[in-house]
């Protein structure tokens, strides 16, 4: 038996503002790829079990400064990157990431962290093969969030920045600045823009066309029997 080591997987990230619909889209993409019996793994920003306790405590007690906010999220990312993302890529998987280090580059820069420092902090991680950027006008994203989920969280709304005592207004200003950062990164990292104003189905068709056209899916067919 020959063991093929270091097979190359594909790293796919989705990014965009809160309310851009990227989680829905990556979820549908995941189902589509898994449905074709491909080797695929999905991971979310800020979801490592080990780090979660500290993040939650920090957020709840509002103990976090821009720097600790940034480093603790990098800790979460490093844990998932080294235990899951990188081994999965080496094992020849398609790895789907709901948010990647670009989220930190955008949010933490808005909080005043030095962009060059942030890029070095995450310097250990690969740049994704595909970064799908779900792009939509700011007002549309704000509308989706502010209508559907009026109870905003402190850090999510950027309240730590003292932009406004009104949480909704703070969220609005914070998201404006985050969007500005994403727009600037689009060229730097070669984001593939997806028009996120359209309906879910049309967007998903485009996402599947991009991924299906960009990689040879047959290479990622699972060798183990399909789990149902």
């Amino acid at each position, binding site marked *: 038996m020959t063991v093929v080591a270091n097979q190359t997987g594909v790293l796919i990230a989705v990014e965009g503002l809160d309310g851009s619909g990227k989680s829905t889209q990556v979820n549908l993409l995941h189902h589509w790829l898994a449905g074709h019996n491909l080797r695929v793994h999905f991971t979310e920003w800020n979801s490592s079990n080990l780090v979660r306790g500290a993040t939650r405590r920090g957020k709840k007690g509002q103990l976090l400064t821009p720097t600790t906010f940034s480093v603790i999220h990098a800790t979460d990312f490093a844990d998932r990157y080294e235990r899951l993302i990188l081994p999965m890529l080496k094992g020849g998987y398609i790895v789907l990431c709901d948010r990647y280090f670009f989220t930190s580059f955008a949010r933490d820069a808005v909080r005043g962290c030095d962009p060059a*420092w942030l890029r070095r902090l995450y310097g*250990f991680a690969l740049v994704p093969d595909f970064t799908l950027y779900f792009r939509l006008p700011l007002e549309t994203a704000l509308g989706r969030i502010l209508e559907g989920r009026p109870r905003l969280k402190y850090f999510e709304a950027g309240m730590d920045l003292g932009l406004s005592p009104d949480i909704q207004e703070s969220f609005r200003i914070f998201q404006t600045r985050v969007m500005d950062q994403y727009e600037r990164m689009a060229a730097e990292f070669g984001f593939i823009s997806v028009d996120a104003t359209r309906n879910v189905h049309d967007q998903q068709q485009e996402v599947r066309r991009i991924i299906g056209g960009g990689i040879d899916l047959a290479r990622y067919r699972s060798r183990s029997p399909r789990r149902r």
Partner: protein
Amino acid sequence: MNAKRCYGAPPPGVDLSKLSGALIVIEGPDSSGRTTQIELLADWLRQNGYPVAHVGLKRSRLVGKELERAKGGNVLSPRTMSLFYASDFFDQLENRIVPALRAGSVVLADRYIFTPMARDAVRGADREWLASLYSLALVPDAVYYFQVSPRTLIDRTLNAHAGLDYWEAGMDLGLSRDWFGSFVKYQRMMRLEFKKLQTAYGFEAIDANRTIPTVHAGLKGRVRGVLARLYPSHQVQ
């Protein structure tokens, strides 16, 4: 002249022009006498009318608990561990060291960025990555590195704990299955790493093989010089 600076850009929200006081760091391995000497220094400083603040590693509210848990079982990758320690450090930097310096205190730090940097480097972390990560740290007004001979370190460690600590013996590195052998190798690696850091960051070596009163007397002399510069109007006996 008491201008504080960081190795790189300061952390967002930290106004260096508002800081005074003194940041004095003691580094060195466990059983080198750091904690004893810090207590003696703190007493002496308080007697001379200086407000004193103590800080150390792994004492932050933010991640102290997770670090203890992670040390219990070897479940985190070295990089995750690095970043956890860095979170702990920055939490203390911004929530304890900076406020104490704003109030003009003498901050005595029982280890600083150098111990985590050395530990991470011997575990394979990229040194430039570490230097960048910790570039937000304040440059201390003095760093004293307690050097002890391997023989003294072994005697003191065995005498104090009747055994070796898993991490201080570097058992996670798989250097040797024999704890004593691993301890000796690991401490040598740490010494070499500290030597590199000493060249890069310029700290003063203290011969910590000597008795407690001798080391204390030497330290007082050095600290007196630092304070004369930072608190020019304050008289010290």
